[in-house]
């Protein structure tokens, strides 16, 4: 049976590198996807994720198991990474999301692949113009797959305030798709 986060953290607190590796392995992909979405740059996102894990290692001896398993530690980790990413984005100039090469989905026809590529460009442009906290709302919802309540907890705001961020962000993305279509 898979160890829960609380068990792994207790072992990490004792300096167990293997337990730490398992936690890193468990969260790195989602955390990196979310952070990249917010800062718009893979290299910066990697540094932020690295820092979040470093803080997890340092603070492990003070971690109080909360019995909720993955959600609690994962939520804490997401909060650290989100705050670091938002802080970075506020300090840095607005940078559009990298247009990383995307593998072609073999199930798409040539026309569909073209439309998908165009949609991705539109999305990158619209995301690049969102305020950092709205980007975070999108990242927590679509990259972390968190509910509104869990996302609000990560961002340390009320559910209503989170929904407001998400609504504004989604509206901007939807309108970007419509504008491009109109033009």
């Amino acid at each position, binding site marked *: 049976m898979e160890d829960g986060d609380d068990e792994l953290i207790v072992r990490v607190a004792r300096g167990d590198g293997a337990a730490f590796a398992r936690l890193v392995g468990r969260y790195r992909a989602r955390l990196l996807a979310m952070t990249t979405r917010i800062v718009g740059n893979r290299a910066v996102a990697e540094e932020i994720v690295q820092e979040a894990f470093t803080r997890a290692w340092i603070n492990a*001896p003070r971690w109080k198991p909360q019995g909720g398993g993955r959600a609690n530690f994962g939520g804490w980790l997401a909060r650290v990474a989100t705050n670091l990413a938002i802080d970075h984005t506020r300090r840095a100039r607005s940078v559009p999301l990298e247009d990383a090469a995307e593998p072609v989905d073999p199930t798409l026809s040539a026309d569909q692949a073209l439309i998908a590529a165009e949609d991705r460009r539109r999305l990158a442009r619209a995301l690049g113009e969102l305020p950092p906290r709205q980007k975070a709302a999108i990242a927590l919802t679509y990259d972390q797959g968190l509910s509104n309540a869990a996302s609000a907890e990560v961002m340390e705001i009320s559910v209503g305030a989170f929904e407001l961020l998400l609504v504004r962000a989604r509206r901007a993305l*939807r309108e970007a798709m*419509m504008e491009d279509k109109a033009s």
Partner: protein
Amino acid sequence: MTPEFYEPEFQEFLDRLDLYGGRLETWPIEARASAEAMLEKSPEARAQLDAMRRAEAALLRSQAVRSEGLDDLAARAMRVAQDRPRETEMRRRLPWAVAGVVALMAGLYVGQLPASTGEGPTEIVTAALDQSGAHDVW
């Protein structure tokens, strides 16, 4: 722009679309029923739903490409984390302990100073005024 943009019902559909996203099956039942009715009659509503779905599909597709090089990241994170010293309970309390010792020593030092002359601030100010002749002016 069609007149339906100004209809409250259409605006409500857009508000819900932004709140719940493009997957109608995840919407609350009542909201879904009214959305389906709106979609039935409004091409503009269908276009807006399609735009939201395309945005969400693009979000999910762009997420999928970000898994390369994760092993490097994991190794680096572990190396950096394990090199950084942990803040143990003793380490965390050390500055307070040092401050406490300094305060204690300062207290002992002050306690050993010679006793004061017994003159209070009022007497000192009065004496100074007497010397300066300020009373004459006042």
